[in-house]
C-alpha cells in the first residue's frame, strides 16, 4: 500500500519501494517490504506500529543512518540511497536533524554549546533572530549556561529539540522523543514540536508507539510486518488507538 498526500513538489522526504533485509538464509529477517511513503514539507507525521513492525528501520533508512536493500530514499532533492560517508555527513549537516529518546547531549558542553554544536561543526553561524526564536520557544533562556547533568530530563530533551531546530533542517527525525520522559514533560516537548511545525513550517517525522504522542501529529502512518497498512489524517488519541487495535498485535497498544 502506498501512502500519498499533497503535491510531489512539497515533499520533504520520500521512500520509494524500500526493502530492508537483514541476514540471509534461514536467519533472514525482512524488516521492510517495499515501503513507499512521502512526507510533506511543513507537516508533522508520526510513524506508528507495533514493536518489530519496522517503524524504526524506516526512519533510520529515511535519515540515511541505515542503507536500504532495494528501493530509493530522497530527502528534499537529495537522493540518499548510494551516498558515501562524506555525502551522508553533508546530508546530516544541511538537511536532517535528530531528536533521540536518550537526549544524547554532550556532557562536556553547556546547553547553549550543545544547541549550537551542529552549526559549529559545520562551520556556520546561527541566524541570531532564529536562534532567539528557538530559545524563546523552548523556554530555556535562563538555563543556557548549565551542563546537561544540571538539567532535568524534560529540559535536556528541550535542549535536544532546540539543537535539531536551530539549523533549520529540511526534516527533523524524532525517535521516541518522549519515551524517557514523564507525561507532563512529554506533553511540553510534543507541544513544542507541533508549534514549530505550525508556526515555523518545520517538517518533522516522529516514530512513536504512544497513541497520545501520535495524536499531536498532522498525520499518522501505520506499519505492520514491514508494510504500510493504514494512515490517519488529523488523528486523535482515540482514532489512533482504534486503528492500532485493528492491527494484529494489540498488546503493544497499552499506552
Amino acid at each position, binding site marked *: 500500500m502506498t501512502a500519498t498526500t499533497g503535491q510531489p513538489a512539497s515533499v520533504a522526504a520520500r521512500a520509494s519501494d524500500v526493502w530492508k533485509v537483514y541476514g540471509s538464509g534461514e536467519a533472514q529477517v525482512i524488516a521492510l517490504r517495499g515501503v513507499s511513503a512521502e512526507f510533506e514539507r511543513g507537516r508533522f507525521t508520526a510513524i506508528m506500529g507495533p514493536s518489530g513492525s519496522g517503524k*524504526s528501520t524506516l526512519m*533510520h533508512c529515511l535519515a540515511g*543512518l*541505515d542503507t536500504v536493500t532495494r528501493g530509493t530514499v530522497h530527502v528534499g532533492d537529495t537522493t540518499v540511497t548510494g551516498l558515501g*560517508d*562524506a555525502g551522508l*555527513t*553533508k546530508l*546530516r*549537516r544541511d538537511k536532517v*536533524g*535528530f531528536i*533521540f529518546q*536518550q537526549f*544524547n547531549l*554532550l*556532557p*562536556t*558542553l553547556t546547553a547553549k554549546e550543545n544547541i549550537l*554544536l*551542529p552549526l*559549529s*561543526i*559545520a*562551520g556556520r553561524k546561527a541566524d541570531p533572530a532564529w536562534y532567539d526564536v528557538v530559545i524563546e520557544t523552548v523556554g530555556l533562556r535562563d538555563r543556557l549556561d548549565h551542563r546537561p*547533568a544540571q538539567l532535568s530530563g524534560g529540559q535536556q530533551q528541550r535542549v535536544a529539540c532546540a*539543537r535539531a531546530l536551530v539549523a533549520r533542517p529540511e526534516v527533523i527525525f524524532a525517535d521516541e522523543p518522549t519515551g524517557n520522559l514523564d507525561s507532563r514533560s512529554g506533553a511540553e516537548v510534543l507541544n513544542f514540536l507541533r508549534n514549530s511545525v505550525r508556526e515555523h513550517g518545520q517538517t518533522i517525522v516522529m516514530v512513536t508507539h504512544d497513541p497520545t504522542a501520535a495524536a499531536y501529529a498532522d498525520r499518522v502512518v501505520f506499519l505492520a510486518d514491514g508494510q504500510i497498512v493504514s494512515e490517519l489524517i488529523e488523528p486523535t488519541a482515540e482514532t489512533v488507538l482504534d486503528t492500532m487495535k485493528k492491527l494484529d498485535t494489540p498488546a503493544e497498544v497499552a499506552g
Partner: protein
Amino acid sequence: MFRATLKSLLARKVRLVLSGLAVVLGVTFVSGAFVLTDTLGRSFDSLFADAYAEVDVNVAAKPKLEVGEMEGQQISGPFPATALETVRAVDGVAEATGVVSTDGARLIGSNGKAVTSFGAPQLGGNWTGESDLVQLREGRAPQADNEIVINKGLADAGKVALGDRVGVLTLEPRQDFTIVGIFGYSGDRDSLGGVNEVMFTTPVAQQLMLGEPDVYNSIVVTAADGVSAEGLRDSVAAAVGDGYVVKTGEQLSADAAAGLKEGLAFFNRILLGFAAVALLVGTFLILNTFSIIVAQRTRELALLRAVGASGKQIIGSVVLEAIAVGLIASVFGLAAGIGIGALLAYLFGNLAGGLVLAGVAVPAAAVIGAFGVGLVITVLAALLPALRAARIPPIAAMQDVATPDRPLTKITVAGALVTAVGATLLFLGLGGHAGGNTLATILGGVLFSFIGVALLTPLISKPVVAALGAVFAGWVPGKLGRLNSGRNPRRTAITAAALMVGIALVTGITVILDSAKSSITGLIQDNVKAELVIAGVQSGPRPPTFDPAVLTETKAIPGVRMVDGQYVDQALVGDERAWVGAVTEPAAMRQIYGAEATAGDIDRLAPGQMMISSDTAESRGLSVGSTVPVQFARGDAQTYTVTGIYESSPILGPVMLPADAARNFSVTQPSQAFIQLEAGTSVSDVLPRIEALLADSPEVSVADREAFLEEQTGQLDGLLQMIQILLALAIVIAVLGIINTLALSVLERTRELGLLRAIGLRRSQTMGMITVEAVVISVFGALLGVVVGSGLGAAVVEALKDEGITELVLPWGQMGVFLGLAALIGVIAAVLPAIRAARINVLGAIAHD
C-alpha cells in the same frame, strides 16, 4: 566467581593486551639483563679457563699499588730475571718460563691511527713460543730486535699483514717493527675476548713494556708429572719469598673472571635501573587500565554484588584478572628477554672479536626476576582499582548513576605529602646527610617525587589542560577534544604522568650533563691561558699519550711562550691513594692554570719536591716543609717535601710533582700538554708545526682551546645519547598508555561519537577530535616532565657545586624539542583510536540501549 572472572577477562582481552605490553617490556629488560650478563659471565669464565689452562702455577711480584678493576690499571711490577732460576730449582717444577705481558702496546694501523680495542687490554710481551693455546698462523717467531708477531685479530683491525713495517707505541714513543708472524688461538679464535697482543723478543719486551732490562712480570710454571698445582704453589711460594704472589692457574683464572664480573655486575645494575624506570611507567599504565575497566564494569560488578557476591570476592576477581595478565605478560617478557639477552651477547661477542659464547642459558635470577617483577607490579597496580570496585553499591546495577566527580582533596593532600617526602629524601641525599646510603636515598627521593607529582597531577591538569587547549579554541573538533581530555582529571593525569617519568629523567640528566659541560668549559675558558692543547680521547683504562720529545720540540717553535706537559697517575701518597700529576713546567701553575699560592713557592719544583692543593694540605695536616712518602706504580717509595701550596681549584689536581716522577708512573708518557703563545702569534701559524711533530703520536692531536673543549665534552654527549636511547623505552611505554587510555575512552563514548556523527561531524573531524585529546594529554605530560626534570637536575647541580659544577644550564632547545616530540607522540598515539572512532557505525552507536 572464578569462571566469571575468566570470561570477563577473555571478553576484554584486547584492552588488556596494551597494558600487558607495558609489563612485557619491563620484564624483557629485567630478564634480558640477567641473561646477557650470565651468558657473558660464563663466556669469560671459559675464556679465562682457556687462557690459563696451561698454567699450573703463576708467580708475580706483589703490586706496588692496589688498584681495583673499575678504578684504573693495576701494574704487576717487574722483578729480576734471577727469580726464574730460583723457581726452576724448586722440586716438582717441570718447566718455568719468564713472561713479559702488560697492557699498553698500541699498534699503529695502516691508516696511521693507533688501533683501539674498545676497552680490552692491548698487551705487549715476549714471545715464548707456540702452545696448545697460541698457534702461529703465518710466518715465524721474532728473532731480531725489530721483529714482532701479532695476533690475527689485531692484524685485521689494523689492516696490516705479514712483512709490513709498523709503528708500535709502548712505554717508549713510537718504534717501528717488521711483522714476521701472525698468530691465533686454539678453537680458530683470532683474539681472546677482544684482547690485542704484540709479541717482541724478550729483551725488547722487557725494555719497552717493563722499562728495564732483565726483568719479567710473571713466571709461568708447569708442574712435573704427579705434582699437584696446589702443592707446587706452596713450595714455589716458599722458595721465592715474601715479595711475590704465587697462584695456581685456576686461582688466576678465577681472579681474572671475578674482576671482569665486577664490571658485568655494574652493567647489570645499570640495565636493571632502566628496567625499574620502565616498570614504574608500566605501573601507571596498568593502574589506569584497571581503573577504567572497573569504571566501565560498574553495572556488571554491582549486579554481581546484587546477586550476592561479597566485596572480597569482587576484589578477588579484579586481582585474579591482574594475576592472569601479570603471568601471561611475564611469560612473554621472559621469552623476549632471553631472545634479546642472547642477541646482545652475540653482538657483544662479535664486537669483542673472538669471544666464543657459552651456550645461552636462563639463570634462575632471570626467571625469578621476570615473574616476581611482572606479577608483583601488576597486582600492586590493580589493587587500588580493585578496592574501588569493592565499594560499588549493588544499587548501581539498577540505576544509571552518573559517577559524580570525586573531589580531588584527598589525592592532592596525599600527593603533597609524598612529594614532600621525596623532596626531603632528595635534600638529604644530595646534601650528603644520608650517611652511607646516599645513592639509595637519592633514588628513593626521585621515586617518591615522581609518585607525589603524579598524585598532584589531577589538580594541576585542570588549569594546564585548559590553557593548552586554548590553542585549539577556534576549531570545533579541537575544542571537543580538549574538553574530553579535561573530562576525567585522574585518567588524564595518570596517562600524562607516565610520560612525565621518562621525559623528566631525560631532562634531568640533560640539565646535569649540560651544566657540567658548560661549567667545565667556563672554568677552562676563564682560568686556562693556553691557546693550544695536545690531547686525545680516552677509550679504556689508559689515557692516550704522546712522545715527550714533542714538548721540547714544541717549545722551540718560534712564537711559543710556554709548554706544560702533564702526566697523570694514581699513587699512594702517605697512606692514602690519590691522583697525582707531574708537570714539565712548574711555572705554568701560575701562568697557564692561574693557580694562586697560599703558602710557599709554586713557581718551581726540584726533584724530590711537591706542591699540594690547599684542601689536601688541610685534610692531611700538611704544610710547607712537611715530608711525605709516595709509592708509585713502579719502583720503591720515595720521599717528597712540600714546597708550595696552591688554592684548590677544580682544574688543578690535589698533588703536583716534578716531571721526573713520571718515570715511575704506570703510564710513563705525557697525556696532555697546554701551550701558551707569545702575544701576537697566530694560532694558525703554530698549529701545523705541532701537528707535524705529532705524526708519530697518533693517539693525540693538537687543537685550539675551543676544539679541545668540544672534544672533551663530546664524551658527555655520547653518554647522554646512550641514556636517551635507554629511556626512550619508558617513553614508548607511556605512548602505549596514551593509546590505551584513548582506546578505552573511545569505547566508553561510543554513543556520544555516534551522536556527533549523526549531527554532522565528518570522519576527519572525529579523528581530529581524538588527536587533539591525545596531543593535549601528551604535551601536558611532557610539560610536567620538563618541569620536574629541570627541578631534579637543578637540585643535583646545586649539590655538585663544590665539585666545580657551578653553572646551571637549562636546555631550552632540548625542552622545546621534547614538547614538539610530545605533540608528535600524541598524534601517533591517536592514530588507531581515531580510526576506530571514525569507523563507529552511527546507527549502531545511537540505537544501542
